[in-house]
C-alpha cells in the first residue's frame, strides 16, 4: 500500500498529455518515435478537442500536405498516425491536482480519481477544458446542484420533480424524452420554435407537447426565484413580456465553454490565459511540465495547428531526457531508420 488516499494504483508512464486535441494526438506520435509511452486526459467525453466539439464538419485548409479536410477527418487521421504507439485515453475527466514527488516525477490526479506518476506532464489544452456554460444571473450559484443543473449526473435526481429544461439542441431534447417518464411535470424552454436537434427527437418532443405530457415555452431565462437554493419559479422573457413558470428544478443546456480550470492554480507563468514557455524545450517555468499549442505564448507565436505540431516535436526532445537521463538520443528520419520502422510497425 502506498498510503495514497486514492484507491487506485498510480499509472506509471513516460508522458501524460492534458488535452486530446490535434496537438496532444501529434505529441503521442512524436513521443512514440522516441520510444515514450503516453496517456491522455480530456474533460470531453470524446477525442479531438475543439476540432471534434466545435467544428467537426468545418473544412481546414492549412495543414501541410493536406489541401482540405474537416475537423473530424483531421482527428481521425492523427489517431491513425498515433495508433502504433498505443496511446491510452482517460476521457470525461479533468486533470485536477498536480504534485511534485520526492524523486522529481509528477503525480497527477484527475477528477475521476485516476492517478499518474510520470516524469513529463504536457499541457496541450487549447483554450482550456470544455465545461458547461452557466447562467450569468445574479444568485444563480446558490441554486447550483440543488435545483439548478448544467448536466445530468444521475437521472434519479429528477424523479418526481417539476422540471424545466432550457435549450434547443440534441442534449435538451434527449433529456426531455428520457426524463419525462420520471418527472412530475416537464417543460422545455427555447428561444424560438425551431430546434437544431435530430428530426426524430423533435417529432417525439412535439408529440409529448400535443398529448399534454410536456409543455413547450418560447422565451429565455430572465431570472430565478426561490430560497435556500430551492427553486420555486423561473422568470421567462418572451416576445409578449415576462412570464413566471413554476418549477422546482431547472436543467440549463446552453452548450460548452472553455476555461483554464485547475491548471490556473499550478504556479505557471500565465498571462491573459496563456502560458509562457521556453521555446527551446516548451517547458514551462517548472521542469518536466510542458505546454504546447494554442494555450501557450512566446514572441511570434501563431495559434495554428501546424505551430502546435512543431512545438510537440521539440518538446519531446527534452521529455526524452527527463524520462531517460542516462540515454543519448540520436536523431533519425522515419524514411530511413529501421529502428523507427519497427516502432511504427512497418518493419
Amino acid at each position, binding site marked *: 500500500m502506498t498510503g495514497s488516499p486514492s484507491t487506485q494504483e498510480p499509472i506509471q508512464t513516460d508522458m501524460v498529455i492534458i488535452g486530446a486535441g490535434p496537438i496532444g494526438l501529434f505529441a503521442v506520435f512524436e513521443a512514440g518515435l522516441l520510444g515514450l509511452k503516453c496517456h491522455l486526459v480530456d474533460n470531453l467525453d470524446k477525442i479531438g478537442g*475543439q476540432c471534434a466539439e466545435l467544428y467537426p464538419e468545418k473544412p481546414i485548409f492549412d495543414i501541410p500536405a493536406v489541401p482540405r479536410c474537416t475537423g473530424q477527418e483531421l482527428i481521425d487521421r492523427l489517431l491513425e498516425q498515433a495508433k502504433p504507439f498505443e496511446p491510452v485515453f482517460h476521457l470525461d475527466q479533468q486533470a485536477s491536482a498536480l504534485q511534485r514527488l520526492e524523486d522529481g516525477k509528477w503525480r497527477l490526479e484527475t477528477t475521476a480519481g485516476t492517478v499518474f506518476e510520470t516524469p513529463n506532464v504536457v499541457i496541450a489544452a487549447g483554450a482550456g477544458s470544455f465545461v458547461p456554460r452557466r447562467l450569468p444571473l445574479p444568485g444563480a450559484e446558490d441554486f447550483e446542484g440543488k435545483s439548478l443543473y448544467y448536466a445530468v449526473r444521475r437521472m434519479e435526481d429528477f424523479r418526481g420533480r417539476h422540471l424545466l429544461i432550457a435549450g434547443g439542441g440534441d442534449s435538451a431534447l434527449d433529456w426531455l424524452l428520457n426524463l419525462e417518464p420520471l418527472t412530475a411535470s416537464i417543460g422545455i424552454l427555447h*428561444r424560438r420554435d425551431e430546434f437544431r436537434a435530430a428530426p426524430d427527437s423533435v417529432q417525439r418532443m412535439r408529440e409529448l407537447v400535443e398529448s399534454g405530457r410536456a409543455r413547450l415555452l418560447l422565451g429565455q431565462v430572465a431570472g430565478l426565484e426561490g430560497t435556500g437554493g430551492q427553486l420555486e419559479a423561473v422568470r421567462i422573457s418572451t416576445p409578449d413580456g415576462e412570464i413566471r413558470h413554476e418549477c422546482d428544478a431547472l436543467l440549463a443546456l446552453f*452548450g460548452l465553454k472553455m476555461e483554464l480550470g485547475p491548471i490556473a492554480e499550478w504556479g505557471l507563468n500565465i498571462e491573459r490565459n496563456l502560458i509562457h514557455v521556453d521555446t527551446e524545450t516548451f517547458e514551462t517555468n517548472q521542469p518536466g511540465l510542458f505546454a504546447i499549442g494554442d494555450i501557450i505564448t512566446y514572441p511570434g507565436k501563431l495559434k495554428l495547428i501546424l505551430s502546435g505540431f512543431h512545438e510537440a516535436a521539440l518538446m519531446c526532445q527534452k521529455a526524452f531526457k527527463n524520462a531517460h537521463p542516462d540515454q543519448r538520443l540520436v536523431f533519425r528520419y522515419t524514411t530511413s531508420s529501421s529502428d523507427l520502422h519497427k516502432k511504427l510497425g512497418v518493419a
Partner: protein
Amino acid sequence: MAKLKVTDRDGVQHELEGEIGWSVMEIIREADLPIEAACGGCCACATCHVYVDAGTLAKLPPADADENMMLDEGFEVRDNSRLSCQIKFSEELDGIEVELAPEY
C-alpha cells in the same frame, strides 16, 4: 476610412477604424476589446454575440440558419442580436453601432 462604434459591457463607447473586408468580430478583437470569439470566427459558438442598432440591422443580410442555430446558445438574445464574426465590414457599414452582449 470607415468607422464603427462599439459599446463595451461597462457602457463605454469606443470609436474604431474598421478595415474593409474584416469581420466586425475581428475589428473588435484586434482593438483589444473583450470579445471571446472562442471558435475564431467560423460560426461555431456564440461568444462574439453583439447587439446592433436598428439602422445597422436594416443594412445587414438576415442571419442564416447556422448563425441562428449558434445564437440559440447565446444569453439575452434579442431581435437585434447578431454574431459579429458573420458581419463583414464594408464602406456601406460606415458609422454602425454595436454593443457587446453579456459575457457568460
